[in-house]
């Protein structure tokens, strides 16, 4: 069951891009030496920021919890080496929105002393699903493919659904990035172990490990490992090299021919997708009690002297990593965290390597594309859109700020892959326009929800005031009636009492 199989579903659109991956895969993964200082942002995952549980001046050990989850969605953060907490302060980070974020800064003591494990961890087969999930939550593990969604919460959602397949995503379709490729070559055993833990936790019978056809070495290595284990539940699948087949929904479509519904999740069609790097992190935590402290990242591009894949402690600055890779070349001009299609351009190399950092891309000056021209409605963008949207229509409505139409045409399903940008003959930056439009839609939805709440409060207040008025009128009527019923003697007595009171004053 270990030979790559080819029975695949259909993916709409997509592009064959120049890979630029060979430049960084010629050497084995190298480890970046421990820096003097580690900078750990408290938001390294989707959801709420983690809350620091250490004080400035405190000594911490490698693997010690330094920020814990607060709120319903999040992941804890651990010290990636031993040392002293010197600051908790805003620091430049690479995020889509905003440039500075609170970070915990550790001054390393160079000893790299680890927290003593309490006892040998139990074999995962003996743990129940609940125990495994609770444990994964404590490991600070997030989706390492780039979306950094907390893994434990993803699994907790998945366990409530009826699932058929586990899909391990080793597609890595974006140009330049090769960290998953190298990971599959060197950590194939750990990937398989992680897959088995996941399948045990979710009681799944079938697991697919999916690799793109341009990674023959990784395919061969995984094939060997699977052949040796002879596990009939795990199947290696090879998919053609088309961007963006590594997108979660696209991969499900490709492997199972099931379409993830608009606004839905892969679990709606019985699939759970995890990145291969996440599987290794799960293995490290469950089997070796090692939380997520480092990650493999590709440092590449024509602006780096010696492109390679490195294993870097979380919190190492990009400057340190680039220096380890021989430094910048003379022509280097642009620093991107992530790939060329979905990555984020940053202005400072002081940003740290975080759980999401799968690639550090340094490019020399790109040839100018020319100015943005009017849309000629050629439809090339619709042909390549992997979600089968109509980018030219969406662009039209985004310009007009027509929220209803943008929703009708499925803007919220856009995965921001950047294919439409690339094929547009008028050089319209469609993806960035859509990103802005999505933010605008969210804003409008917020406004609407607020208005609705205000309306309800206003109406219930009016109801309450009406009720109070009525009650007062009733009380008055009751008193009047009581006085009338009491007869003239009683009234005379009341008047007398009143008079006495007035005289007393």
């Amino acid at each position: 069951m270990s030979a790559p199989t080819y029975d695949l579903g259909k993916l709409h659109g997509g592009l064959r891009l120049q890979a630029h991956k060979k430049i960084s895969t010629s050497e084995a993964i190298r480890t970046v030496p421990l820096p003097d200082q580690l900078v750990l942002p408290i938001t390294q995952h989707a959801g709420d920021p983690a809350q620091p549980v250490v004080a400035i001046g405190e000594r911490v050990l490698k693997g010690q919890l330094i920020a814990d989850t607060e709120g319903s969605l999040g992941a804890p953060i651990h010290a990636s080496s031993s040392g002293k907490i010197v600051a908790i302060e805003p620091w430049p980070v690479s995020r889509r929105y905003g440039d500075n974020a609170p970070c915990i800064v550790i001054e390393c003591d160079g000893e790299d002393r680890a927290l003593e494990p309490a006892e040998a961890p139990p074999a995962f087969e003996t743990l129940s699903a609940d125990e495994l999930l609770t444990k994964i939550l404590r490991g600070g593990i997030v989706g390492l493919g780039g979306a950094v969604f907390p893994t434990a919460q993803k699994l907790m959602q998945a366990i409530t659904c009826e699932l058929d397949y586990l899909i391990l995503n080793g597609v890595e379709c974006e140009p330049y990035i090769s960290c998953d490729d190298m990971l599959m070559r060197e950590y194939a055993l750990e990937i398989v172990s992680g897959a088995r833990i996941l399948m045990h936790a979710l009681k799944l019978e079938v697991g697919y490990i999916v690799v793109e056809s341009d990674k023959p070495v990784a395919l061969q290595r995984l094939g060997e490992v699977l052949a040796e284990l002879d596990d009939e539940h795990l199947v290696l699948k090879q998919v053609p090299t088309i961007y963006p087949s590594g997108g979660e929904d696209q991969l499900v479509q490709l492997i199972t021919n099931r379409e993830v519904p608009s606004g839905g999740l892969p679990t709606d069609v019985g699939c759970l997708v995890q990145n291969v790097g996440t599987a290794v992190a799960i293995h490290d935590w469950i089997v070796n009690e090692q939380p997520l402290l480092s990650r493999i990242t590709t440092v590449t591009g024509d602006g780096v002297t010696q492109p390679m894949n490195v294993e870097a402690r979380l919190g190492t600055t990009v400057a340190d990593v680039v220096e380890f890779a021989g430094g910048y070349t003379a022509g280097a001009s642009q620093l991107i965290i992530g790939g060329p299609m979905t990555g984020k351009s940053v202005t400072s190399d002081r940003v740290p390597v975080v759980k999401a950092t799968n690639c550090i891309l340094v490019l020399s000056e790109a040839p100018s594309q020319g100015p943005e021209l009017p849309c000629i409605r050629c439809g090339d963008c619709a042909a390549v859109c992997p979600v089968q949207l109509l980018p030219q229509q969406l662009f039209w409505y985004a310009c007009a700020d027509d929220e209803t139409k943008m929703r009708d045409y499925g803007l919220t399903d856009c995965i921001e892959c950047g294919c439409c940008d690339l094929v547009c003959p008028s050089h319209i930056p469609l993806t960035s326009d859509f990103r802005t439009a999505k933010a605008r839609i969210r804003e409008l939805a917020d406004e609407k929800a607020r208005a609705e709440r205000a309306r309800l409060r206003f109406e219930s207040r009016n109801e309450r005031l009406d009720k109070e008025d009525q009650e007062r009128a009733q009380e008055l009527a009751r008193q009047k009636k009581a006085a009338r019923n009491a007869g003239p003697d009683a009234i005379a007595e009341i008047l007398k009492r009143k008079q006495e009171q007035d005289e007393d004053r």
Partner: protein
Amino acid sequence: MWTAILTIAAIALIAGLALSYASQSLPSDSGKLVDQINELLPQTQCAQCGFPGCRPYAQAIVNDGVAINLCPPGGDDTIRKLAATLGKEVLPLAEQPVAGRAVAVIDETLCIGCTHCRNACPVDAIVGAHQLMHTIIEAECTGCELCIAPCPVDCITLRALS
């Protein structure tokens, strides 16, 4: 020929009777229109239109034909939507629109606990008891400014939210 004329006349008579019956005895849908108009208004309940809240303004628009350009928080956007729904002409705003979202803030060191602002708030966004400090629930405040005038010690200000 007479058959045809009589048939047509009979159909017209029956249809006419049915329609006049329906228009008199079935409830009119002006309530539905008020809901629809109310939905387009920003629900700040600020009374800047001269009516005590958004729903009263919506009722006045539908029932009394009041102008559609009296809502400063809604701005030109709301006027455009109202015009489209009612088939009226788009008018410029009668007053200057407010910029961005703002909330009222009570200076708690000055507050004397008179409850005047609490009673003025159209959305019950102010909490506080008699002779005790009051405060504003930021998430519920619509920035309508109705609490500012009643305050005897002028301790309420409007703060813009970024």
